[in-house]
């Protein structure tokens, strides 16, 4: 199967840095801000953004991990869904939450994530940051911060690889 590189290591790092700055710019700093990464790769992106913000603003933002399986709209169609832990060690009430995912596609994951967060409290705002927006939305949901827009064909797969889980940093397109 052919594959092409959408973002190489350096481009990926620059993109995460840019998203970090956009978050700080849009929110005029980082007071009242917290980060929630969607399993699995959203967690590592969230940790990198957290680290960037610490370097820039000298502030450790609270970071949570969200497993959206219980909130999926196709849960009854799945053979076996493995449910992993949601760990949000802070009060979401009145927070501005930056929800972080690797690839945005139909919008269904985001919908599930928003519902999951709302069940934990009433945040002031939820903003969405994604590394790749591959288009093809099925719900009226759009990211506030997108690393790169790439309109993928349905048969193409956008794979985000991160050092922490995959051993290397890159974004590739397969099935072209």
């Amino acid at each position: 199967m052919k594959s092409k590189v959408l973002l190489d290591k350096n481009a990926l790092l620059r993109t995460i840095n840019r998203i970090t700055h956009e978050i700080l710019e849009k929110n005029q700093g980082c007071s009242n801000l917290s980060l929630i990464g969607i399993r699995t790769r959203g967690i590592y992106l969230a940790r990198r953004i957290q680290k960037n913000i610490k370097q820039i603003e000298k502030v450790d933002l609270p970071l949570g991990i969200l497993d959206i399986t219980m909130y999926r709209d196709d849960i009854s169609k799945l053979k076996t869904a493995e449910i992993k832990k949601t760990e949000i060690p802070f009060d979401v009430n009145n927070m501005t939450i930056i929800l972080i995912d690797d690839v945005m596609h139909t919008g269904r994951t985001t919908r599930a994530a928003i519902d999951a967060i709302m069940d934990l409290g009433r945040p002031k705002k939820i903003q969405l940051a994604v590394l790749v927006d591959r288009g093809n939305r099925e719900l009226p949901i759009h990211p506030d911060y997108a690393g790169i827009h790439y309109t993928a064909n349905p048969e193409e797969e956008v794979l985000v690889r991160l050092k922490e889980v995959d051993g290397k940093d890159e974004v590739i397109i397969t099935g072209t």
Partner: protein
Amino acid sequence: MKWDRKDLLGIQELSKEEILFILDTAESFKDISKREIKKVPTLRGKTVITLFYEPSTRTRTSFEIAAKRLSADTINISASTSSYVKGETLKDTAKNLESMKPDAIVIRHSMPGAPHMLSKIIDSSVINGGDGAHEHPTQALLDLFTMREKKGKIDGLKVAIIGDLSHSRVARSNIFALTKFKTEIVCSGPPTMIPPHLEDLGVKVEYDINKAVLDADVIMMLRIQKERGGVSYIPSIKEYSTIYGLRKEHVEKAKNDVIIMHPGPMNRGVEITDEVADGPYSVIFDQVENGVAVRMAILFLLIGGEA
């Protein structure tokens, strides 16, 4: 892991991997009960019937709460208020309930094998909520969950099970579960309450409770099953409680961080003293708390996805 069972009938047929998968799934569900909004939409549109031919407080409430926290609808049927009193057979009752399209039926019955029979004649998932003196799988799963939570592991534990072994489905399911791990199990009770060939299940029998609890990590107390004629196996309740009732002096012979378990309902002053039941080593109410998480996991695995 791929889960492809329709029913949960007993522990005996489960693999160690399946047991661990259930416990891991339950970990994720445990947090939901601690939130302000104790509900997730996971089983929206599903229906769970509890069909209980024997009395129950914990198991039935626990199943109902578990189902409701997953957004399933629940209907409770007790034998005393059902057509059972008009002479309807279990099979007919089940067939009738099946016609109303429930996704799962939790059944408790005094007849061993009742859930197994049901599972062959209906398409809904069947969960054994206790069948006679045979099995009580969800109790054993919540017991293992509690042991793992408190001890950080199951392998390597020494577990003393004390009381009316011959009539206890809880003991049987726990023995089936624990023998799949590297555990040491010691059973103790009056000889009349220890079934012959119990050792064949992979446990030791020790009639002296003082020796049974020695260096135990877990002491699991059982109730005398009065409804199964338990009292006729002992000279008197008083004598039983003197010899086999768990007191502080027994707890002191176990490991320093021993946990005391009881599936409930407790007969205080018979198999366990107040001092021990309410003491620092007791995890009896943790068991109840964990029961909800384990039953949420079971319901999710059985009826959550595509059959």
